[in-house]
Structure formats: structure tokens, C-alpha cells
């Protein structure tokens, strides 16, 4: 549980936030200048003019009423700014180790999950944007933070890079379970990553709700939900050369079949990407269907957004959630509603493996 009650004068307005955030990932959205970055910096202790209270899992980091004001170095808050801000005079290794507090084994695991093992001797100037973000993330996580603050970690990355960094975030989310505030402009990202969305508008919390509710609340900016995709991390299980398919064990449980990709060795960590509109929905268990991937799932949320309906489904016997985009007419015809059991079908060829 994170309790944030902060006021901070900004250039044009005053940031006033008073929310309690349960565990998990909270996406912070809102127009530029709404105070998103200022909120993160205030929580990290980098804005001396911030007043109020900040309590993370019972640890008081700031409470002006009681005269408690921990300096940044004692807050144990991991902050990853939008432009990474790596130390240019240090190698990747020394950047990551700068404030490292986690035991050796966990650090190695972190470097592996973030794909940094081969970059350790490089210097920040020689890294790509995505690599920098991953190093900054590792540097923050290596301090074993109580709270993680990410400022648009995927902004400024092209689509290919985003598809490589987002899976790392998903994996971290699953493996590290650090309460996280995540600034983004993309509702799609928020839907994939976050339990709830905090919408800031000129310094105030305009809304706080699950990302799908936000999708339903208004016609979102087309840009924010364009290319709504599912990201399922997993590991290659086996190749079936005659059948022309590769089988992948999904981290959340279950197995998926994708077109043969022999260049990925069994055991390799991969991410499966499926567009929300490429998932078929049936209300009865389908038989005699060509799609290789059919899963039973329960509809946990159902929201109209613009001209489409977006479903969030939880796979039965697995922890993965899958987003599906349908037309309202299909939803009406199949009588789909929250709580309904459905079957999701995905053609092997609609799944990309990265």
C-alpha cells in the first residue's frame, strides 16, 4: 500500500495529490504539464518544496506533520527518468553496481532478465535508446527499492524497440513485484501493465480507476489505444519440424503454438505478441478449427471504446490475461458480458515471436 498526499507548486499550477494505491503497478496518465514527472520527482525526494505525506508499506518516507523528511538516499525509491540519465563516465557494469544492494545471485538474474549480460563493458554513449532504458531500470532495481518510479520508459522508442523493452517490464512485474508508478501516454501500455490508472489534469487527480474502465469512460485519443497488443512472455519448449510449428511454454501457464522458428533454441526466453483484434472469441468450445491455439477463458472486463469493444479475459488454468477487441455487433450477438466463460482462438500465424 502506497499513501501519497503531496502538494508541490509547479510553474503554472499546484500539484495536489491525495491517493492510496494498493500493491501492483499504477499507470500515471494525463496531458503534458499535468505534473506527472513532478509527482515522481517529489516522491523520490528530489523536490525540496514538496509538502505532505508519503508512506510505502508502512515505511514513512515523508510526513511533514510529524517532521519526518527522509533525504533521497534514505528513501530507497528507484527512479528511472525518461531520458535514463546514465552516468556517462561509468561502464554499464559500474552504472548498474552504482548503488547495488541486492545479493549477487539476484543481480545476475536481473541482468539476464533485462538482457544486459553482454553489454556490461560498454559505455552509455555507445548504447541505443532501448539499451539505455534497460540499464537505467537495472540500476534502479539493483538498489532493492521499496518503490519503483518509471517515467515513460517506452517513450521515444520505435515500435520494434518497444516490443523488446515491454516484455522486460512484464517479466520484472512478475518476478520482482515492486510497487510501481508508471508514467505513460499509451493507454495500451497501461492496459497491459497496470492494475489501475491515475489520470492527472493540471496538477489534480482527475480519475483513478482500472485501465479498461478508462477505455470505456470516453472515446480515448485514437493514438492512445492504437495497436492494442497482448504480450505473453514465455520460453521455447520444442520445435516440430514436420508440423512446421514451435511450441512455447507461456510464463503464466499453458502452451502456445507459433510458426516454426528454429533459430530460437529450446529454453530461450521469448515474447509472443498478438494483436487484440486478431483473437477470435467463441461462446462454445470450438471443434474442427484450424487455429492451433484455443484456450478457455473468463471475461473479467468488457468496455466499449469508440467504435469497438475491448474485453479483458483471464485464461482458465493460467494467470495470463488476454485483451480482445471485437465489434459491438459481435458482442451483442454472442451475448458476451463480464463473468461469461468464452473460448479464445489464435491462429499460429497471427502470433509474432520476439
Amino acid at each position, binding site marked *: 500500500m502506497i499513501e501519497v498526499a503531496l502538494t508541490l507548486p509547479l510553474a503554472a499550477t499546484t500539484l495536489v495529490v491525495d491517493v492510496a494505491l494498493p500493491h501492483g503497478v499504477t499507470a500515471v496518465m494525463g496531458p503534458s504539464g499535468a505534473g506527472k514527472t513532478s509527482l515522481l*520527482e517529489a516522491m*523520490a*525526494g*528530489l523536490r525540496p518544496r514538496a509538502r505532505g505525506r508519503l508512506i510505502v508499506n508502512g515505511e514513512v518516507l515523508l510526513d511533514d506533520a510529524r517532521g519526518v523528511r527522509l*533525504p*533521497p*538516499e534514505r*528513501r*530507497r*525509491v*528507484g*527512479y528511472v*527518468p525518461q531520458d535514463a*540519465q546514465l*552516468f*556517462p*563516465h*561509468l561502464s554499464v557494469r559500474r552504472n548498474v553496481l*552504482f*548503488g547495488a*544492494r541486492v545479493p549477487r545471485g539476484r543481480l545476475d538474474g536481473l541482468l539476464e532478465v533485462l538482457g544486459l549480460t553482454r553489454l556490461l563493458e560498454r559505455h552509455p554513449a555507445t548504447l541505443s535508446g532501448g539499451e539505455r532504458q534497460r540499464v537505467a531500470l537495472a*540500476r*534502479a532495481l539493483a*538498489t532493492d527499492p521499496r518503490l519503483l518510479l518509471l517515467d515513460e520508459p517506452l517513450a521515444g522508442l520505435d515500435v520494434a524497440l518497444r516490443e523488446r523493452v515491454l516484455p522486460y517490464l512484464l517479466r520484472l512485474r512478475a518476478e520482482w513485484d515492486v510497487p510501481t508508478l508508471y508514467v505513460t501516454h499509451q493507454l495500451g501500455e497501461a492496459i497491459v501493465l497496470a492494475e489501475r490508472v491515475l489520470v492527472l489534469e493540471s496538477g489534480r487527480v482527475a480519475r483513478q480507476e482500472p485501465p479498461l474502465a478508462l477505455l470505456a469512460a470516453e472515446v480515448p485519443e485514437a493514438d492512445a489505444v492504437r495497436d492494442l497488443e497482448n504480450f505473453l512472455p514465455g520460453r521455447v519448449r520444442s520445435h516440430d519440424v514436420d508440423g512446421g510449428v514451435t511450441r512455447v511454454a507461456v510464463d503464466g501457464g499453458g502452451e502456445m503454438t507459433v510458426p516454426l522458428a528454429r533459430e530460437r533454441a529450446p529454453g530461450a526466453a521469448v515474447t509472443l505478441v498478438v494483436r487484440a483484434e486478431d483473437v477470435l472469441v467463441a461462446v462454445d468450445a470450438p471443434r474442427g478449427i484450424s487455429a492451433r491455439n484455443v484456450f478457455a477463458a473468463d471475461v473479467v472486463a468488457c468496455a466499449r471504446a469508440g467504435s469497438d469493444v475491448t474485453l479483458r479475459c483471464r485464461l482458465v488454468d493460467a494467470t495470463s490475461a488476454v485483451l480482445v477487441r471485437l465489434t459491438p455487433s459481435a458482442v451483442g450477438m454472442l451475448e458476451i458480458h463480464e463473468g461469461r466463460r468464452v473460448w479464445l482462438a489464435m491462429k499460429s500465424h497471427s502470433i509474432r515471436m520476439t
Partner: protein
Amino acid sequence: MPTSEDLGIVLLTLRVAGVATALLLVPGVLAGFGLARYRGPGRGALETLLSLPLVLPPTAIGIVLLEALSPRRAPGAWLAARGLELVFTWKGAVLAAMVMAFPLLVRSARTAFEEVEPRLVGIARTLGCSPVEAFRRVTLPLARRGILAGVVLAFSRALGEFGATIMVAGSIPGRTRTLALAIFQQHQVGRDAEAFRLVGITVLLAFGALWVAEWVGRRGERVR
């Protein structure tokens, strides 16, 4: 060929410039850092005061120092009470060189610190550094090149100091007569050949100092 007298002059000059630069290093770097970060009132006045030795004639600085060091004045009395004799000694030459070289080091260091991204310091703090640690581990290494350039400038200035030195330390052969003073002295008595020999030595010294600075800078590059 350089004589043993020349060697004595060179050693004295190196000692004066070396000691002056070494003594300046810490206060110069700290003053540069202070000027780079301080945003309060009096900043402009402080900067002007620190730059004064750059714009005033060195002899003006020299006579002010001489007056301050007289036993009738507080600083002179304080130093005398501690047995520190500065006037007409090599230590006086060190003081004169320090005063003249200080602004050069401070200005270089200030520029170097101003170029360090302040947000990096904030990041270092969130990673567990106290302000002092953040200065040592991030600010200082990033400003290193500029500071080094300032040190070279300050050393060169100290090497060639003339006006303030002759006022405070005089030009006593074997005691306070540095290269710059010796060249003047030889010329005054009409021994231009001797003067030019000393000029040659000075050129070599200057090249040596620049070469050492370059080497130290390169070595630092490789370490980081």
C-alpha cells in the same frame, strides 16, 4: 649549456609554481563548485572579487599583499606570531603566485561544474549517495577535464608570475629569483644571451607541463 646557477633557478621556479598550484587545488575546486551552484544574493559581487587579480596590474596586487603582510597589519601580525616569514622569501613568491593563479583555476572549475547535468546528481542521491558522496562519485569525475585544464592554466600562470612576485618577494639571487625575474634581471644588466638561454629553458618547462597534463588526462580517460 645551462649552468648550475640556471638549475637552481629552475628548481626554485618549479618549487614556487608547484607548491602554489598544490595549495590552490582544493580551495580553487571548492570555490568553482560553490560559484557554479550558488544562486543567492551577492553572487555577482563574489565573482567580481574573485576575478580582480585578472584585471588589476600584478604590481597593484603585489603592493596590497605587501601592505597586508606588514607586521603593522592584522594578517602580517598573525603570520609573524606563527613564525611564518613571507616578505622577501620564496614563500612570499608562492603567495603572490597563488593570488594571481587562483581566479584561473576557479573559472575553469566553475565552467566544468556548470556543465555537469544536475539531474545526474539527483539520480545518484536516489541510488543511495549522500550529497558529499554524489559530489565525489559523479560531479567531480565529470568535471575532471575542466578542472585539469584549470590546474594547467594556474600552474602556467604561477610559472611566469612577475609583477606581484617582485613586489612581495623581491629578486634575491638563489632565494626568490625565479625564471621570469631572472630573465628581466639578465636583460637589465645587458646579458641578453643569458636571458635568451633562460627563455629557452622556460619554453621547455611549459611544454613539459602541457605534456604531463595531456598524459594525466589520457590516463584518466582509460580508467573510466
